[in-house]
């Protein structure tokens, strides 16, 4: 490797790492440990027992402490890897290897964000507020608007303060709620609003977010979303649904185009095949027969879906497919049947005391390489970050999720 190539590689690594950390909300709101690999053990013990009595003698009660035997293995990894041909590299002004390095850093960052911001939703013992906590119907999402967003924040803060979260707090919202909050602040027109009215919200986190009543608000599209597709009738040839900008076409016969799902003999089988396709991030193709068959998504669409951590489930009795993603995405449909449609997507905001989640992002777990590929005039750009995150038992009352739509 020449000196010039070596310098370029170092530059690419530096830019990739910069993107990995600079764009990451999880890196700001969590208690981050960059030193440990392997297995980590619960760092938090119980609160101390206090004897609070009038003095009558010199004796006192000796308390005991407890430490949960939780542990966490740092065994998750986010990997980006692509082969860049020499011709492309040399003939494009773009500087394609540098570009891929920066994209890798940004993509891995977003993926880790999605994983961490999903933790409060899936961790047993962490509360989820819904409409029932706002004098509405339990189970329903709380409908956010520019007239109730203050309530959503205030009630959430009250809940975690009752769980002894006294330190500085954060809230991660999607673009929908940040719009509501901007609207609220614009309509109140007081001084606290000025900063947001002028500057908007931080979405690339390079410094502290915007503050509302002592809560630092960050906007991220990587919070968890769930949406239900009602599909009770087999689609008509050419019908489409769109998820995260990826259009999936139901067809009687696969045409060779991307993202097609064969219409099976029953709607239950068609829906099951769609769910299978989504769970594979649209990366798989399946040979066509009466009850099977779909084609892979385009390269761009596969990349989009790969970042979303999609978990789709099929429900034959309810005639629905439920899709949960580590990211807020748009949905639409063009289904002929008048009663088949998407439900209203709902999201989970994350509110907590800084550090209520622990993110392990070991420095030694990050690697960037440019590998020669035998038989190929080009090289493989490769980036990997080992990581894991958890909410330790003692911290479970210091944050929560808020189900909204």
């Amino acid at each position: 490797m020449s000196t010039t190539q070596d310098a370029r590689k170092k530059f690419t690594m530096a830019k990739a790492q910069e993107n990995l950390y600079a764009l990451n909300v999880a890196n700001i709101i969590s208690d981050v440990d960059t030193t440990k690999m392997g297995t980590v053990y619960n760092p938090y013990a119980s609160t101390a027992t206090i004897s609070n009595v009038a003095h009558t003698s010199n004796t006192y009660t000796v308390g005991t402490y407890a430490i949960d035997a939780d542990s966490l293995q740092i065994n998750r990894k986010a990997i980006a890897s692509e082969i860049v041909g020499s011709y492309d590299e040399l003939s494009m002004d773009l500087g394609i290897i540098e570009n891929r390095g920066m994209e890798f850093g940004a993509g891995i960052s977003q993926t880790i964000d999605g994983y961490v911001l999903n933790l409060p939703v899936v961790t047993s013992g962490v509360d989820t507020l819904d409409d029932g906590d706002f004098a509405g119907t339990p189970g329903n999402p709380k409908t956010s608007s520019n007239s109730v967003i203050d309530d959503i924040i205030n009630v959430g803060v009250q809940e975690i303060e009752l769980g002894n979260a006294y330190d500085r707090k954060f809230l991660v919202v999607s673009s929908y709620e940040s719009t509501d909050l901007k609207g609220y602040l614009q309509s109140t027109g007081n001084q606290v609003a000025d900063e947001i009215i002028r500057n908007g919200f931080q979405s690339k986190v390079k410094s502290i977010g915007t503050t509302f009543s002592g809560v630092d608000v960050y906007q991220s599209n990587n919070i968890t979303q769930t949406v239900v597709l009602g599909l009770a009738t087999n689609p008509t040839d050419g019908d489409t649904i769109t998820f995260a900008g990826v259009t999936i076409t139901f067809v009687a016969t696969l045409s060779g185009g991307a993202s097609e799902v064969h219409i099976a003999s029953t709607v239950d089988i068609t829906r099951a095949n769609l769910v299978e396709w989504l769970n594979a991030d649209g990366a798989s193709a399946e040979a066509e027969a009466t009850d099977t068959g779909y084609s892979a998504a385009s390269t761009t669409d596969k990349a989009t879906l790969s970042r979303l951590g999609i978990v789709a489930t099929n429900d034959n009795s309810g005639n629905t497919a439920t899709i949960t993603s580590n990211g807020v995405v748009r949905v639409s449909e063009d289904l002929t049947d008048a009663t088949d449609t998407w439900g209203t997507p709902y999201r989970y905001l994350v509110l907590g005391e800084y550090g209520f989640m622990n993110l392990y992002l070991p420095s030694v777990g990050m690697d960037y390489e440019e590998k020669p590929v035998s038989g190929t005039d080009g090289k493989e750009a490769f980036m990997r970050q080992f990581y894991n995150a958890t909410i330790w038992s003692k911290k479970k009352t210091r944050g929560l999720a808020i189900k909204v739509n």
Partner: protein
Amino acid sequence: MAKEETKKEEKVVLVKGSPEWRKAKQDARAELDARTNAVRQA
């Protein structure tokens, strides 16, 4: 007579894009939301 009653129970296919079709889509979404929330409450 019995034949006519059976006919009435058949699903009415609405014309795609018609106002009735749009209304049916809206109703279906509301019904789906209600059903989803009911399942979550259980």
